[in-house]
Structures are given as structure tokens and as C-alpha cells.
């Protein structure tokens, strides 16, 4: 009888303890971010670098700061193999995970971006496409859920024209010059053409478009043609194996590499190292700073790698082009969540809709960047309802044989020219789909 009484007294205490234990995990809610990464296949270097850098930055925020205002970040990777169908499957799989669902989708593939473009609006998940994707999504009135932040392809093309203009002594000096646009024959490669054609008309230079069939490891014919044309500059708009092949072919045909200006998907260590000596002097664009000297990367080394929690297996890749781009992805995501928390309440995980507001009101000025330790790593950025691009700036760097050296500071694209094309293209999409433009003056 006594034993039963003791057991009965113990039971409510045990229930209370069990209840507390069940309740405790619910208190520590986390902000979930789905990562549709690709770590295999021909583009694995880009995928592992960028997603690795992004994961490292999120680990830094969790380890050093204890999360964003106490809300820790959690993430899960889903292998897309850079394939559209797998990307769609990953999108659907990651959609519902975490306490508030997936709060941002950044596929790092233009193909996957197009495949889920219409789904993100229905599922209320902001899609951020930094330096790729659908350029005309910069018009936030037509694409409220897509953010092609920092710079789009047309801004890159405009920046390249300005850079080449600077090199020849001014944009007026471009008249009569010849520029070859050597592009990967795909949707990605053709993205730059509208702006290049418009600029050729505006500044009076001759534009010669030369396509390279995918995957681009055969460029004899193209470089023979370039040798005949004798252009002043060659713009290399390539991806993957096309890039080192172009540099080697340029060396063989005797075209000076410091007259080749590559895009930001043609300007990484994985593009220049395979080309060996042929890459020396080659110039490329970038929308993130290069090198490991940035304070934020030092912080990552201190708080993440020193505690053996780093994501990169090859630690020498910290500070490489793709890794830094990953850190930029992390910074923009975290700061957008922080911005959203200022409106929707700190200390709890936010929904995709709230994070979208955060992205749309992201304002990273020089002071903010200095506080983050990212001055020079990314440009000052101000996203708004109508302008989802936020900066439209690009930097140029040069390969010296062993590393990338910064060549210029941030060059701003001709924003009125770029914006004009964006609004034209977004407008025709809106008409085709019957979308009414958002009235940005009415929204906060």
C-alpha cells in the first residue's frame, strides 16, 4: 500500500518533468533554410564553394552570435546535380521543413530558377538569384518573389562595356572599335546579347557574336575566327570547361589574354588554374571581393574552422572566388532575416512571407558593411519594391598566374539603360501572363 502511494506521488512529478522536456525543444525554434546544392558533376566546384561558404557564414552566426537575435539558423542540403528536374524535387522536398517552412530558395542554377519561378509565388518562398537567373526579375513590380540581387547579367554587360571604355580612354573612344562576344550557346550565354547589341548601337562599336556549342571544349574554329577578326577586346561569357579551353585556345592563337574580359561565372580559380600559363593576365568580372583578407572571413577562420566546424574539406579554398560568393550569399540571407525581424519581432523564426519583406527592404550601407567586416566583399546595396537588384555594380580582377588580384573598385552599370531593358522585358512577361504591376508607392 505504501509503495503504491509513493509511486502515485512520484507520477505527477514525472509527468511534469516529461512535459518540460517535451516543451524545451519547442522553445529553441530555429530559422530553417533549405539549400538546393550541387556537389557532383561538372559544376561541383562552384556548388561546393558557394554553398560551403554560405554554410560557413551561417555556422559563424550560430557559433559567434548565438543566431540572429537568439534564433539559430538550421539548414538542410538537397542534391540537385545541377539538373532542373532534381531542382524541382528538392524545392518541393525542402518546402515544408522547419518550424515555418523553407524561408528562401537559392538554386544557383538559371535552369532551376526558371523551373520554380511560378511556384515560389504560390508557396510564398522568396527566391534569391545572386548574379544569375532571370534578369528581368529585377523589376519587383512584376516579380515580387524573385530577387536577382547585387547585379544582373545586363548590369554585368554594361559594366564590362564601361570597363573596356575606361581602358580605351573613355566611352566615346569606343566608336569604331571591335568587340567579340564569345558566348556559351545556351540560355545563359545569350542573356548578355540584348544589352551588348544596344550598347554597340549607342557607342558605335562593332559587336561580333560568336557562339560556342556546349560544353565548349572545342574552340579551334571560334579562335581562328577571332584571329581573323582582330578585335580590340573579347568578352568571354562562358561556364564550366568552356573557360579554360578558351584561355588555352587564345594562347595558341596568340590573342593577348589581358584583352579578354570574362564574366563572373568565367572568373574563378577553377577556370584559370586548368589553363596554366595561358591564363596569366586574363581579366574577369566579379560581384564579390576576392581574397581571404576580409575581417568577416578572418572571423570565420577564428570561430568556425578553429572549432573544426568548417564545411570546406580543402581549407585552402577559403578566400577563393566561389567561397567568397558563398559568404556573400550568407550575409545577404542573414541580414534580410535580421531586417525582417526588426518589423515582425525578434526572437522567433519568421515565415517565408516575412523574410521576403526583409529582402525587399534590405539596406546595406557602408557603415553596415564595415560592422559586418565585409567592406569590399560586396557593394552597398539597397533593395526596394521596384528594384530587386539593389546595386548593379561589378568589380574587375586579374589573374597573375597564381591568384586573383583586384583590378578596379566597384563600377556601376548604366542603370538607366539596364533598367529600361528590364522594364521592357518584364512588361512583356506581365502582359503575357496577365499580371498587374504592383503599385510600389502604396506598399511600405
Amino acid at each position, binding site marked *: 500500500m505504501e509503495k503504491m502511494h509513493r509511486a502515485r506521488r512520484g507520477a505527477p512529478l514525472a509527468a511534469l518533468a516529461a512535459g518540460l522536456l517535451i516543451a524545451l525543444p519547442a522553445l529553441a525554434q530555429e530559422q530553417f533554410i533549405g539549400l538546393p546544392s550541387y556537389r557532383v558533376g561538372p559544376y561541383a566546384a562552384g556548388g561546393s564553394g558557394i554553398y560551403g561558404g554560405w554554410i560557413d557564414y551561417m555556422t559563424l552566426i550560430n557559433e559567434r552570435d548565438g543566431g540572429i537575435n537568439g534564433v539559430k539558423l538550421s539548414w538542410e542540403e538537397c*542534391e540537385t546535380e545541377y539538373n532542373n528536374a532534381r531542382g524541382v524535387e528538392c*524545392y*518541393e522536398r525542402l518546402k515544408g521543413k522547419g518550424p515555418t517552412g523553407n524561408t528562401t530558395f537559392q538554386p544557383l542554377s538559371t535552369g532551376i530558377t526558371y*523551373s520554380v519561378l*511560378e511556384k515560389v509565388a504560390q508557396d510564398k518562398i522568396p527566391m534569391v538569384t545572386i548574379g544569375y537567373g532571370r534578369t528581368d526579375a529585377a523589376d519587383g513590380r512584376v516579380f515580387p518573389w524573385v530577387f536577382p540581387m547585387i547585379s544582373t547579367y545586363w548590369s554585368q554587360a554594361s559594366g564590362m562595356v564601361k570597363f573596356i571604355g575606361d581602358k580605351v580612354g573613355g566611352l566615346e573612344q569606343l566608336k569604331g572599335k571591335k568587340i567579340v562576344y564569345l558566348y556559351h550557346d545556351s540560355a545563359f550565354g545569350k542573356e548578355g546579347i540584348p544589352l551588348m547589341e544596344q550598347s554597340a548601337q549607342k557607342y558605335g562599336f562593332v559587336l561580333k557574336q560568336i557562339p560556342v556549342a556546349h560544353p565548349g571544349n572545342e574552340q579551334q574554329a571560334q579562335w581562328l575566327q577571332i584571329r581573323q577578326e582582330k578585335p580590340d577586346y573579347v568578352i568571354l561569357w562562358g561556364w564550366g570547361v568552356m573557360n579554360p579551353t578558351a584561355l588555352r585556345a587564345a594562347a595558341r592563337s596568340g590573342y593577348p589574354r589581358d584583352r579578354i574580359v570574362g564574366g563572373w561565372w568565367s572568373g574563378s580559380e577553377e577556370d584559370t588554374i586548368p589553363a596554366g600559363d595561358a591564363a596569366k593576365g586574363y581579366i574577369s568580372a566579379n560581384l564579390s571581393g576576392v581574397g581571404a583578407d576580409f575581417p568577416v572571413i578572418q572571423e570565420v577562420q577564428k570561430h568556425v574552422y578553429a572549432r573544426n566546424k568548417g564545411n570546406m574539406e580543402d581549407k585552402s579554398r577559403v578566400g577563393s572566388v566561389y567561397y567568397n560568393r558563398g559568404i556573400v550569399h550568407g550575409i545577404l540571407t542573414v541580414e534580410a532575416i535580421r531586417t525582417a525581424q526588426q518589423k515582425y519581432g525578434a526572437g522567433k523564426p519568421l515565415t517565408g512571407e516575412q523574410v521576403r519583406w526583409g529582402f525587399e527592404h534590405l539596406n546595406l550601407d557602408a557603415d553596415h558593411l564595415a560592422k559586418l567586416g565585409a567592406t569590399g566583399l560586396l557593394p552597398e546595396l539597397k533593395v526596394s519594391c521596384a528594384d530587386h537588384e539593389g546595386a548593379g555594380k561589378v568589380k574587375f580582377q586579374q589573374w597573375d598566374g597564381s591568384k586573383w588580384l583586384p583590378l578596379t573598385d566597384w563600377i556601376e552599370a548604366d542603370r538607366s539603360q539596364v533598367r529600361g531593358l528590364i522594364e521592357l522585358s518584364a512588361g512583356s512577361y506581365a502582359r503575357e501572363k496577365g499580371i498587374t504591376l504592383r503599385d510600389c508607392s502604396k506598399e511600405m
Partner: protein
Amino acid sequence: MLYREAGQFKASYQADQQIFPIRQDRVGFALVLAFFFLLVPALANQYWLQAILIPVLIFSLAALGLNILTGYAGQLSLGSAAFMAVGAFAAYNFMLRVPGMPFLLALVLGGLCAAAVGVAFGLPSLRIKGFYLAVATLAAQFFIIWALTKFPWFSNHSASGVISAQAVVILGYAFDTPASKYLLTLTVVAVLALLAKNMVRSSTGRAWMAVRDMDVAAEVIGIRPLHAKLSAFAVSSFYCGVAGALYAYTYLGTVEPEGFNLDLSFKILFMIIIGGVGSILGAFLGAAFIVLLPIFLDNVIPKLFGGLLSSSFSSNLQLVVFGGLIIFFLIVEPHGLARLWQIGKEKLRLWPFPH
């Protein structure tokens, strides 16, 4: 004991020649159809419908097309993805440029365009065989993708060459939910699979199989090789074209020519090899294997060892395991999964006796 046809007498030739002569087969198949038509849309969530079932159905259809060409008619083809692209872009252009075009008609017209292109690229089959024909169809693959990228008319002059499929509306009913898209895809695939099954059982199918087995002997006994081979190309490309149109309209929503690259052609070829060449069921089993197994591995392998594997390692391990399983299945049963199913049924006929 369970799978006997004792007591099942046929009273007409029609009954004797039906696709499922054994009653248990008919009942089983009816249950399967009821499951997929009635139970699945009611119970499955969006992830299963949108990301798992619809792509399996679409690739089953494409694999069915390739199986007709390679499995039944013996013409090796590496251009199936290109014919899918033709179907997708043709259906898109018909819906875009012809006002009031019904979706199902656009689907059929897209398939017919793909069939016409298939016949054009199948002409070399009259002179070359086997490996060499595969190279000629490889030319189809590259040429069609190049043409779709090069001529902006196909993608309605979009800057990037990407086409965005219009909404699917049939008789005023909009197919915009995953369940409705799934049912539409399932219906189309079921109807076309039935047509394919009957075609291969008919004299057309027998002509194909004769050409496959020994085309000289087939010609000698009076089968016209031109007719047989080109009809195989036409039907196969029609199926691939419809699959491509469904790929654009009910699955991805937007497609670009690069999405129908050589990798996809190889994938479809692997589907019929794993599933079983020369078998209708094989197309479905192979498509399920090739589409679902990588997703299953991606769900399971990263969580192995308590998440201690680095993501790069686990992604590469998935590819290794996938390749290993393909090799394993081909060693265990070179004739594919459909043969395993057939062996299973034969053993069930004798059960509980071993022989």
C-alpha cells in the same frame, strides 16, 4: 494455388486474345488503376504528386516510346530527348499562335510534329544498323537542340530561349493543382500505354519484332522494311513528343532546349535497359527506378552515420551507389526488371509447389 486459370473458360476469340486473359490479372490491374486514379490523388501530398509521381509518369511515356523503337523494332536511338523537345516546343507554339487551340489537340499536334521529325531522322535506318544508326540519331539530338536555340522563333523571341508553358484549360476546367495535373498526366499515359500495348500485339508490332530479329528474313517473307522502320520511328517519336509536351505543361512549367540534352537521352535509354527492352511494363519499372532511386538515396545517405558524412562525400556516394545498383541489377537479371516480374509471376503460378 492463387494464380490458376482453372475454371476460366473463354467463349470467344476476343476473350481469348485480351491483354489480361487470366482473371486474377484483370482484378489486380483494376486494383492498381483504382489505386492510382482514386486513392493517390486523395491521399498523396503535393510533394509526392508534383515531384515524384508526375515525373515518373512522364518518363515512363518517353521510355515507352524508346522501347517501341529500340526494344520492339530494334532501332537503336539516342535522340529521344530531342524528340521530347520537339513535342514541347511544338505544343507551345500551337497553343501560342493558334487562338482557341484546345490543350489536348495541341498535345496531339506536338506529338505529330515530333513524329514527322522522327521520320526524317529515321530515314538513315533504311541503310545503316545498330551502332551506326545510334550515331545518326545522335546527330538528331544535337541538331534539334541547336535549331531550337538558334532560331528565336521557336521560343517566341525570348531573350534566353526559355519557354513558359501556358495554363492548361480543358473544357473550361483549369488544371492548375498538382492533383489535377497528376490525373491529366495519368490519363494521357494510361491511354497511350494501352495503345502501345495493342500496337505491339498487332501485325504492326509483329512486323517490328521481325525487323528486330532478322531484317533480311523479314524482307524476304514480305514485310516492308521501310514501312516497319519508319512507322516505328514515327510512333516512338510521337510518344516522346507527347511526353515532352507533358514535361513542359504539367511538370516543370518552363523549359529550355538545354534541358533536353544528351544526358536526358541517355537517361531514357538506361530506363529501358534497366526496365527491360521489348516490354511495356519495363518502361514503367525502368522509369521508376531511374527517377526514384536517386531521390531515395539523397534522402537516406546524408543521414547515414548520424550526419557525419560531409555533403560532398555523401553526394558522390549517392552516384556511386546508384551506379553500383544498376550494375547489380543487370548482373542479376540482364533482361531487366520486367523479366524479374515475369519470373515472379511464373513462380506464383506454381506456388506452393517449387516446380
